[in-house]
């Protein structure tokens, strides 16, 4: 578990950066999605009011969460839904496994749920002899590749269509060399239709859970959550405690924000409101804490629980776009993942709050106005104080402190740096200098500002 045995963000980003063309493609594609978001957002003059309202609704919801959870539970039960409570990932997985076992089946279809990724449900069920098929196309692709999703909305954004074609050739029998997205999607449609029609149990995530009515809303473009749920005899929905919103009318606010922020669409194709099981069907909701109540108690970080998982902060992030989702080694990647993960394991994820330029673009696009870059900065203080930074970073910081604390040393160091870069550039332009990776070092200035000032203004 120590930082030395786990590969950190910089190291994993280095691997991703080995293929420069792919990095450029990744960067440009995500930026294109960010631009689509801007286009959609600019059509609504009330956008900022919407964001502010959503943020305040979530703030209120978190301040009264215990009551809303109880209200939601009571209403869901009255609607005929069985409600389960899981304190952590292990309990969540055991509850789901228990429901599957009770029905005597050994396979299940699942739609997108980042919570089940967080809980490593697939691995747990597989170890217990249950086959799980992910039904979102992107998730099915990464499942076949035996990889985790690299983006919460676009799970296989790191993959090229030729690689997907190879996977489909190996697992789904498409002819070798086929990489047309239309053909590959049609193949997945046929393959997954068979799965939907033969699975008795379906698990979905939850986008919003309404305390007032006890219903939950699931949003997809593909229709996979609905295909699984309505064809199943047992529907299990997994949700974190923070998915609660007080009233049904609040859905209007969140559904207007969610997809515009995510992909620039005005709304997802399907926004399905599940309130009661179909006659003869069993419906379960598993409400999961897994560290969220702890985060709720962290004043500086509780706003992270407002997140509605749109992924806008990833699409806009200059670091995410160039380092790829897998470099964050956590179920939720990017800026939001970097403020959620340290709450789960501060040592394992100590590197993530540093995987940012603190440019603030994430906070600017966040539909619920989470102060993401401020929280990244604050996590750095917490992590350094707790002693979880690497030795190299600690030593570097000490050196900087020494240099910056004395004008004499600072000037000498500046001069030495300019000399080295001018007369011996090979001393910095080499693999030993992490700043040189995927970058050219800048041309050194001829003189420092201080020297220039002395020369030009010094005697005035």
């Amino acid at each position, binding site marked *: 578990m120590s930082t030395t045995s786990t590969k950190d963000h910089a190291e994993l980003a280095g691997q991703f950066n080995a293929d420069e063309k792919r990095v450029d493609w990744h960067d440009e594609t995500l930026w294109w999605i960010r631009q689509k978001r801007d286009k959609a957002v600019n059509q609504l003059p009330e956008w900022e*009011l919407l964001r502010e309202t959503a943020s305040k609704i979530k703030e209120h919801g978190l301040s009264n969460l215990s009551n809303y959870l109880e209200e939601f539970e009571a209403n869901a039960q009255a609607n005929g839904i069985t409600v389960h409570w899981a304190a952590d990932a292990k309990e969540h997985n055991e509850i789901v496994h228990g429901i599957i076992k009770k029905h005597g089946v050994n396979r299940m279809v699942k739609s997108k749920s980042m919570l089940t990724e967080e809980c490593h449900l697939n691995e747990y069920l597989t170890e217990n002899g249950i086959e799980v098929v992910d039904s979102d196309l992107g998730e099915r692709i990464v499942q076949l590749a035996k990889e985790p999703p690299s983006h919460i909305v676009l799970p296989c954004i790191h993959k090229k269509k030729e690689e997907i074609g190879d996977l489909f050739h190996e697992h789904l029998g498409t002819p070798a060399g086929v990489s047309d997205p239309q053909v590959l999607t049609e193949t997945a449609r046929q393959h997954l239709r068979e799965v939907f029609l033969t699975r008795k149990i379906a698990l979905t995530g939850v986008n919003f859970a309404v305390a007032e009515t006890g219903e939950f809303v699931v949003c997809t473009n593909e229709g996979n959550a609905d295909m699984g749920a309505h064809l199943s005899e047992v529907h299990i929905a997994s949700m974190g405690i923070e998915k609660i919103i007080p009233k049904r009318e609040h859905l*209007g606010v969140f559904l207007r924000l969610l997809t515009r922020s995510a992909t620039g669409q005005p709304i997802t194709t399907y*926004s399905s409101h599940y309130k009661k099981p179909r006659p003869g069907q069993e419906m379960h909701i598993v409400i999961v804490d897994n560290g969220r109540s*702890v985060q709720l108690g962290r004043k500086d970080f509780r706003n992270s629980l407002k997140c509605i998982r749109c992924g806008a902060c990833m699409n806009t992030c200059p670091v995410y776009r160039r380092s790829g989702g897998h470099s964050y080694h956590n179920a939720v990647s990017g800026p939001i993942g970097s403020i959620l993960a340290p709450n789960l394991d501060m040592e394992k994820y100590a590197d993530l709050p540093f995987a940012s330029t603190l440019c603030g673009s994430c906070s600017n696009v966040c539909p619920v106005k989470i102060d993401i870059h401020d929280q990244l900065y604050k996590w750095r203080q917490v992590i350094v104080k707790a002693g979880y930074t690497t030795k190299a970073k600690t030593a570097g910081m000490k050196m900087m402190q020494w240099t910056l604390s004395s004008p004499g040393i600072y000037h000498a160091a500046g001069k030495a740096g300019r000399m080295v870069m001018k007369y011996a550039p090979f001393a910095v332009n080499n693999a030993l200098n992490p700043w040189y990776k995927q970058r050219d070092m800048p041309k050194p200035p001829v003189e420092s500002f201080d020297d220039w000032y002395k020369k030009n203004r010094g005697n005035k």
Partner: protein
Amino acid sequence: MSNREKILSAVRANQPELTALPEIGSLKSLADKANLLTQFTTVATNIGAKVFEVKSLAEVKTIIQNKFGAEKRVVSTIAELSDIADTKEYLGDLPVELADVELAILQSDLAVAENGAVWITEEQMGQRVLPFITQHLAVLVNTKNIVATMHDAYSSISITTQGFGAFVAGPSKTADIEQSLVIGAHGPRSMSLFLFNED
């Protein structure tokens, strides 16, 4: 202590001081209420739906018969379409038995101009899986039921409604492979909207 109590007491202990719930009424009044029909048609077309403005059910039938072959399975919750669609038998089927439905024709009493979505209730679906499992979906909408925004939409949906309902906006789609848009992911490959005007 049960899990439930454990979680609730941890939440109770850690939740911040109660803040006020904001009013959302002002968002409703901001909406662009002009040209709802044009706005709805434009947005629905942009998200991949085909929009037909019709004068009568007979016109709907003609378009459907020209578009879809007579030999395929067509079902509908609209009783007046019983001459071109199964409006009864399929209700007794198991959900999986609807796998071969080619076209489902449903009615919606609520459409949203800002995003091209229509609200379909469980009753209007006949069977919950129908609007998703069908290869093609057609929905009839009275233009007087078009509202401006999602705020207006939720104002007009009864809170005590049925066990299931969905906003459906266009045909099913995915862009998971290299962000190339493909219509027809797991649900319908097309969505036709028949707009009529009746008081």
